[in-house]
């Protein structure tokens, strides 16, 4: 059960403004408060940067894919799974064939299998490096504002390593696109990013302050949704 509160961030983001001027997009993001019973305690190893980033990414994904907010699009994950499992199956088939059939006669098939495996492995690496990069969440939602408006948000994150004066930080950037009539007319786009050191979200035991993280994410998402082009 989520208590819905009107956003308090910025006058222009107020929901009531959209009734007056209906070309202005509704940038209000429903403020969701998750009661304590529904939360699992998140505790990670404070010194492990990978764990810290994964914990933040997990909470981000779980928060933004709530039904009131966005619907997650799993394309990147699905491509990675498809290429990965295809290469595993090719490898398993080739190895099984090479085991069953005597070496000399098996050579052409094993060569073919090897080449297919290498191609798939290279495809996976190229996809992860060029297409997926740092993206952790891609979400979509449809709102009705005189016509069906589709909004698409992409969140990327990476860890900023520590320097002598700053602790390690979590850098989150959001890209936002709104379009209408099935993606054909572009209504606006936005890009925003913010950085917070991990200290802000994790205490000395490694317990994560999820509400504070979620409200920071909410603030960033609302900022990116504020339309700068119109």
């Amino acid at each position, binding site marked *: 059960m989520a208590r819905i509160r009107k956003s308090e961030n910025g006058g222009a983001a107020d929901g009531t403004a959209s009734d007056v001027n209906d070309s202005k997009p509704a940038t209000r993001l429903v403020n969701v408060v998750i009661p304590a019973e529904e939360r699992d305690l998140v505790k990670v190893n404070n010194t492990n940067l990978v764990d810290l980033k994964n914990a933040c990414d997990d909470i981000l994904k779980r928060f933004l894919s709530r039904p009131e907010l966005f619907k997650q699009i799993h394309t990147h994950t699905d491509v990675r799974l498809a290429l990965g499992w295809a290469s595993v199956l090719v490898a398993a088939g080739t*190895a099984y064939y090479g085991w069953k059939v005597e070496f000399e006669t098996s050579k052409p098939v*094993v060569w073919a299998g090897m080449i297919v495996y290498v191609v798939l492995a290279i495809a996976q690496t190229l996809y992860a490096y060029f297409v997926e990069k740092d993206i952790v969440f891609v979400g979509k939602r449809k709102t009705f504002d005189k016509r069906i408006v589709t909004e698409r948000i992409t969140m990327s994150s990476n860890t900023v390593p520590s320097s002598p004066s700053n602790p390690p930080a979590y850098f989150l950037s959001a890209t936002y696109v709104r379009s209408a009539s099935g993606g054909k007319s572009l209504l606006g786009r936005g890009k925003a990013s913010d950085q917070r050191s991990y200290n802000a979200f994790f205490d000395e035991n490694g317990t994560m302050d999820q509400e504070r993280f979620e409200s920071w994410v909410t603030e960033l998402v609302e900022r990116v949704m504020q339309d700068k082009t119109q």
Partner: protein
Amino acid sequence: MFAEELKAFRRLGVRGVLVQLLNFASVIASGLMMWKGLGLLTNTESPIVVVLSGSMEPAFYRGDLLFLTNPPNVPYQTGDITVYKVPGSPIPIVHRILETRGIVRNAPKSAIAQDVADGQKSAVLRAVEGQEVEQLLLTKGDNNPIDDVDLYNGLDWLERRHVVGKVRGFLPYIGYVTIAMNDHPNLKYLLLGVLGLFALIQRE
């Protein structure tokens, strides 16, 4: 201990579990492919073998790791150390070549040489014409008193096709890990189980 892991898995969802399983499976797949690739490059079915007996001492001791190649058209020579498998026994043997013989097997004659009678041709021309010279080998372990004819299961000579490869290099002692895992298969399953558990739980 497992209740927490199960809860973590349920939180991951179907996709998350598939991704974790993929991490584990792809490690195994890449290992398999590297092994097969090495086999293809060296033209032998097992490019790395472990010495099990002491019949090649003092050159190789039990537990040494051997690296093999099998160059396709290069004949083997006396003194090469080869690993061979006699048909009918599953265990490959690593011994040194004592003697080699080449015999000529008849292959279909090429059109060019057809009108010239066999007796008028020299050995070189015969080889050029496409008749194959097959190698027959006799081996003996350095530390054995007699040669290997008794091991050949009825054959008098080893044929080239029985040879897995020729030794090109070795590493001492490393093979004991494989010997231990073969003598105690539980060790093998334990190792695989532990690696699997780590791969499933770790997230990168």
